[in-house]
């Protein structure tokens, strides 16, 4: 359920430029965006439109050049590197296009990583990882290595990993682009079912039109600008 009164992300006039001189690329040109808690916001647009740059800035893994960006009232600009890292570790979950599961760790160990980064003991972290893996339907694959899992299963492990430490914001970069249509659909159903919650915001970057139906709102980007924001839920 979207909570219109609580802003998870508020970006105003965001700018980001890569390179300099003649090779300069304006990835973000004054982007304004608001994401509410409980909302699944999709950023869509052609390649090079600035979607990934925008979620990188929002997630605090990339510094912006100008503008404002607050995540649950916190601005990464006012944090030092250590504070940023700590904030990300506690409050932000990531789901990547290529899953980014560490190949030599089992599914449960991969899921346990964010908890261990936050200081939880390995045994406790892997126990909790097994619990959440059963929630995403992988209770029988907790000891499997990523190479032993299908693409859909790997993405489910990645979703479990992004959720385990209870982050307030989850950013997903093309979560279905490496999956076939049916598997992608299932992954998105799972995301909506287990990951989207009243106290959590979701931002999904995609250009896969087949999963647009799972969004609460869709922000279209082009050439570093948000060109339109479309509501897919009547209550928004």
């Amino acid at each position, binding site marked *: 359920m979207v909570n219109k009164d609580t802003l998870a992300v508020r970006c105003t006039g965001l700018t980001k430029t890569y390179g300099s001189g003649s090779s300069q690329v304006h990835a973000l040109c004054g982007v304004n965006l608001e994401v509410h808690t409980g909302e699944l916001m999709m950023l869509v647009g052609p390649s090079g439109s600035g979607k*990934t740059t925008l979620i990188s800035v929002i997630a605090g893994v990339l510094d912006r050049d100008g503008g404002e960006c607050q995540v649950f009232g916190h601005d990464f600009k006012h944090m030092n590197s250590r504070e940023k*890292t700590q904030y990300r570790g506690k409050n932000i979950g990531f789901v*990547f296009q*290529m899953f*980014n599961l560490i190949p030599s*760790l089992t599914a449960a160990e991969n899921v346990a*990583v964010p908890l261990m*980064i936050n200081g939880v003991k390995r045994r406790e972290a892997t126990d909790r990882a097994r619990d959440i893996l059963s929630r995403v339907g992988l209770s029988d694959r907790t000891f499997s290595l990523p190479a032993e899992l299908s693409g859909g299963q790997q993405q489910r492990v990645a979703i479990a990993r992004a959720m385990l430490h209870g982050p307030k914001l989850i950013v997903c970069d093309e979560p279905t682009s490496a999956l076939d249509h049916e598997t992608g659909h299932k992954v998105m159903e799972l995301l909506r079912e287990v990951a989207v919650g009243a106290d959590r915001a979701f931002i999904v970057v995609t250009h896969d039109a087949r999963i647009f139906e799972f969004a609460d709102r869709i922000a279209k980007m082009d050439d570093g600008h948000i060109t339109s924001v479309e509501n897919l839920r009547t209550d928004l």
Partner: protein
Amino acid sequence: MNFFALKMLVGNRAKYVGIIVGLTFASLLITQQSAIFLGLMTRTFGFLTDTALPDIWVMDPKVQYIDDLKPLKETESLRVRSVQGVAWAVPLYKGLLKARLPNGTFQSCNVVGLDDETLIGGPPKMLQGQLADLRGSDAIIIDIVGAKGKLARVLPDGRRIPMKIGDTMELNDHRAVVVGICQVQRTFQSQPVIYTTFSRATVFAPRERKLMSFVLVKAKPDQDIHALCQRIRRATGLAAYTRDEFKTLTIRYYMKYTGIPINFGTTVVLGFIVGVAIAGQTFYNFTLDNIRYFGTLKAMGASDFTLLRMILLQAATVGAIGYGLGVGVASALGLLTGSTELSFRLPWQLLLFSAIAVMLICAISSALSMWKVIRLEPAIVFKS
């Protein structure tokens, strides 16, 4: 995260084995070549180690090392004896003489002539016979390695019959009878060692005006050895060194005037470079292979300190394994070649030296990786 760091390390089998092989090879080269070098250097003063009783060695001031023999007049021992603080002073002959073996072949031998009365300066360990047997007619004592090796009789079928008590040889046309077999430290030249009395050695040796090589001196109890050396120098005009000083003088000569340190040093440096090149590059490649995962960990909130600790743990693990294997193989080679001419000495200081070298290789290797990870932008995780 340490457990995961180790799992990441061993998960990439090819790189893991490659790094360990590189470090093992480096550790082996550094340890083994240094051990051979140390063994050779130890052999240079092997005779000094064997002759443990005297406190001071007196010799011609021009002598540069133990085998640099510049004979003295025999009366010099009397002059030394008269110096205050000297308990006793005895002559010692040392020279390289040709022995004619029963089968007619010649063999150069290190002949040591001991004071006739006291037999001071004799071999440290008698295996057969007694030192006092030297008082017999034409008596000599030979070392076991020489007896089994260069002095042994070779049969037509190639078998070697070791020289034994009762066998004879000719030393400069003088008959010599083996009355004992002793054990001594290997010498640098690896010649058989023959002990006899001083007077008999001067008979064996070609006629020269001066035949005494050294005067061996024992200080009276509670004497300051260095002060006594000074007094002997002042009183006789000869050089007087403590055993350790003479060892240092000998080593210094070999270090300065032979190519041994450069040859072995080059190999040791090569071992180090090979270690850095193979292990360092493989470890760096291993980090590059995992850079996406390090980036993922960084994005998920792992601090630089955590990531550096993971890399250091990985480097320390492969370093410890590579070092252990290298030193183990070097020690095994040392044991296997213990009974051969190959010199090999592996004291704990050398193990420490190798450990430091391997640590340095790991430090250089991991420094490159750490630099890469510290500079890593976590935004890399969103690049496909």
